[in-house]
């Protein structure tokens, strides 16, 4: 199912600072909450997010249990070349998702 939303501009001027916004569906279960049966629910969080711009990491973040479900991250990058932005989320229970967006710099 479609489970992430990414906003990245399709075009930019060289040297322009552009804002990237990402949102991903994830329960971000803390590992501290009790379920309906009283047992503690096992932790299930995204641990790391990274954005690569033509292969080079331009932004990354470590995520912790206090971050709410469906984490939203916004950050800026300097548009210096046309190419691909790749977004990866990695977490507990082998969670891994990769999305990409193309940007044309003139």
């Amino acid at each position: 199912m479609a489970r992430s939303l990414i906003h990245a501009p399709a075009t930019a001027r060289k040297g322009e600072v552009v804002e990237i916004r990402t949102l991903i569906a994830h329960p971000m279960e803390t590992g501290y909450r009790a379920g309906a049966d009283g047992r503690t629910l096992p932790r299930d969080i995204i641990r790391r997010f990274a954005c690569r711009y033509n292969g080079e990491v331009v932004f990354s973040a470590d995520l912790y249990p206090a971050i709410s479900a469906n984490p939203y991250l916004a950050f800026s990058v300097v548009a210096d070349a046309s190419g691909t932005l790749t977004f990866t989320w990695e977490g507990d229970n082998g969670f891994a998702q990769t999305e990409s967006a193309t940007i044309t710099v003139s």
Partner: protein
Amino acid sequence: MKARGAAVAWLLACAAALAQTTPANTRRSGFETMSPRIQAMQRDDQQNPGMLWVADGEVLWNKIFGISFSCASCHGDARKSMRGVAAHYPDWDPIEKKPLDLTQRINLCRTRHQQVLPLPPESEEMLGLEAYVAYQSRGMPLTPSPARELDAPRERGRRLYEQRIGQLNLSCSLCHDKLPGHVLAGATIPQGHVNGYPTYRLEWQGMGSLQRRIRNCLSGVRAEPPPFNSDEMIELELYLAQRSAGMALETPSVRP
């Protein structure tokens, strides 16, 4: 004489305002009383987590269920066929001879036409489909169904809304008609309009239906909430839709 005429007119205006505790021109969507940051979150489709459910709903709309039918097989492009549909639910169903809300209507399509099991209330699939259908009416005014058969259940809904209930002995009306704008346990009491469901609540960290919201309030006043899709629930939904008639639909809304 002129001054007396004006005074009489003013008194009449006051009487009219008292007769209807929330007149149309003072109605405020819950959107207007929340913080600018949450408002920005709702406005921006790339930031609004409810859009994840809308996207899921679109996938389900085109997915083939049961005897080789998808929703789209009959209804075609939801952007055209479902435009304005959510704005008049709950509506009267002449075959079932009872009022149905949007989720029950979706489930009827599943059992009658697709011949598959109904989706459980509050399941991610149901919330997705409901959000996707309601999203097609975003920005349109709520226009409750004019079917005459709905008058009696809607009136029962009004009585439920005004009836004191639970250990705290409160009615819906006491907070949402008499005290909106005041603060209850750190949260601003909204006027309780139903123009954004299903809604993404930050407190829930997920999507939820109007019925979930009502059950939430009822357990808050320590009353026993009626089960999902019970007659009382649908009657309350009918009255609430009438109460918010004319307000623009915001689905998927974001609330604190």
